[in-house]
């Protein structure tokens, strides 16, 4: 059974430090939501409030409309995958997975079948008699996952569960986590500071900064239509330039910057005081000498400062007056350092963000 999670105006302080400054959001049953933000933004604090390890000083946390603020952690029926896996070192893998069943008073006759099923689900078949220290990091993470899903929680909580794994394994396990969550249909909240992980795994991303929510949106929206300068900068890489509003027609907004004017395709634009123009490095199209700038594009020109070969692409860092912009182009390009270069940035890929 999965629940609808409602967090309303949750505040929590440690002394003078406000870790959560009135956070509110709503998660539909069965959704996979990621809390994404830099270290110290309050995402783990929020997760611990949802699990019941921390009590908010104000605000409400509801599961299917029931206020959970005073419900102790062991009665919330949530299951958390910890960053350190938190396996019980004195118990075998089988006993680790069985622990939740015993605590939930599941009839003993059902234990074997449920544990076997959970172990098969995460690919741990035959490892039941081992102790946690006899397993690799990836296997330990799977045990933690099996231990969580075996109790069929209302809510699956993940606190940076993959941060101790190497890049390849991280990618593999995150796919497994997503598939498992889809299969079981349990509402899941996943905390990470890795934006690539958040984009790959989530139905919805909640971008957090300094105890506040900056944006709640689907991965594609949050990446393509970042709400503000922080989100644009934190999620992926963005070129940002302070700007001022000049004019708006039906679907285009024109802003002025110190390197010239930019046009952005934005029919929902509402006039703001403090704005920046933003575009992604991979949306920059190199315009070679003698070629014309394509229609519907802004132009950014400058001198190549660094040309970094990344294997799957070439990253160009270019000086444009006192600014440094980053462009990602196909790896076949040969762009020498010190050369002049022009890039076209489509209006449709140019965003006006707050801040």
């Amino acid at each position, binding site marked *: 059974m999965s629940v609808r999670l409602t967090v309303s105006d949750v505040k929590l302080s440690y002394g003078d430090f406000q870790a959560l400054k009135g956070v509110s959001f709503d998660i539909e049953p069965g959704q996979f939501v990621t809390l994404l933000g830099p270290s110290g933004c309050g995402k783990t604090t929020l997760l611990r409030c949802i699990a019941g390890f921390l009590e908010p000083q104000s605000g409400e946390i509801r599961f299917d409309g029931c206020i959970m603020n005073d419900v102790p*952690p*062991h009665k919330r029926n949530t*299951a*958390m995958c910890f960053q350190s896996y938190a396996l019980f070192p004195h118990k075998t893998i089988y006993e680790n997975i069985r622990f939740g069943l015993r605590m939930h008073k599941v009839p003993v006759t059902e234990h074997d079948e449920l544990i076997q099923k959970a172990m098969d689900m995460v690919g741990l078949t035959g490892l039941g008699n081992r102790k946690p220290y006899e397993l690799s990091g990836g296997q330990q993470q799977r045990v933690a996952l099996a231990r969580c899903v075996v109790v069929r929680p209302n809510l699956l*909580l993940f606190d940076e569960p993959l941060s101790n794994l190497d890049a390849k394994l991280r990618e593999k396990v995150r796919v497994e986590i997503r598939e498992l969550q889809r299969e079981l249909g349990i509402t899941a909240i996943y905390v990470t500071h890795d934006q690539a992980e958040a984009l790959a795994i989530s139905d919805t991303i909640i971008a957090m900064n300094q105890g506040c929510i900056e944006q709640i949106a689907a991965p594609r929206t949050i990446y393509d239509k970042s709400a503000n300068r922080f989100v644009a900068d934190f999620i992926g890489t963005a070129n940002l330039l302070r700007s001022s509003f000049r004019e708006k027609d039906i679907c285009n907004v024109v802003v002025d910057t110190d390197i010239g004017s930019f046009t952005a395709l934005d029919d929902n634009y509402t006039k703001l005081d403090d704005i920046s123009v933003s575009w992604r490095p991979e949306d920059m199209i190199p315009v070679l000498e003698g070629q014309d700038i394509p229609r519907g594009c802004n132009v950014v020109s400058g001198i190549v400062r660094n040309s970094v070969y990344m294997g799957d692409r070439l990253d160009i860092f270019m000086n444009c007056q006192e600014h440094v912009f980053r462009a990602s182009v196909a790896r076949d390009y040969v762009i020498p350092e010190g050369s002049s270069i022009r890039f076209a940035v489509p209006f449709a890929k140019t965003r006006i963000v707050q801040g």
Partner: protein
Amino acid sequence: MKKKKFEWGYLLLLPGLGYIGFFVIVSAYIMIAQSFGLYNAITGEVSFTLEGWRNVFTKSFFDALWFTLRTSVLSALISIVITYPLALLMQKTKARKWLLPLIKIPYFVPGLVGSFLIVNLIDYHGLLNEVLLLLKIISEPMRLRNDANGIAVIAIHVWKNVPFMMIIMFSAIEGIRQDVKDCARNLGANSLQVLLHITIPLTVSSALVSVILTFIRTFNDYAISSTAGPMNPLSLSNLMKTTAYSYNDWVTAGCIGVLMTIVTVIFMVLYTVLGKYLQNGGK
């Protein structure tokens, strides 16, 4: 084959090895030799004899052995019964910053000084008896010092051992990662279940180790049993001292010393085996 070059770095081991060699091996050898009449530091006259080993197993010896074993086991068990819950409570309370150093004080007080302190409290007209008389709980003072059951000895050992055990147990309890306990709560365990399924299993090895270490300390004690213990039976260390100094029978005293060492070594082996057993998760 190339001759292996002498490693001068091994010389750095000399101070440590010298200590072990001189104070442990040599003194053990002297004690064993003495028990067979092959060492005499007073007259220098030596001759092999089994007289000491024939004389040692008297009623006094067995009484002393039983008394010493009983007081050591009881004081170790009582100490852990007090220490374990105290360490658990201490870990929860914010006052531990000043409570812990306070509890550790008896550990740093010399055994003899502690002995006098407790003796003064539990003596015939000590504070305890006077208070109980005043409250009319007892009609006449109880004899708690030098009693045959060794109540005073046990009380002083407990007073002295609780801080020692606290150091071990508090570290063990503090050593349990918070996320492991949080995980248990998250999986449906209440506070008591966390204690029974996580905290106790993860600290029981430290508890056993501290019981054995305390037993060894108590078993070989001289100062406390000589000030607060009974004249009959004596503790083993007191019997050894009396045999040597009062009866001038250094050979039999050597035998008692050897037997005390054997008991200690048995418990040291037990400690090592138990430690390894628990480290391997009971296999």
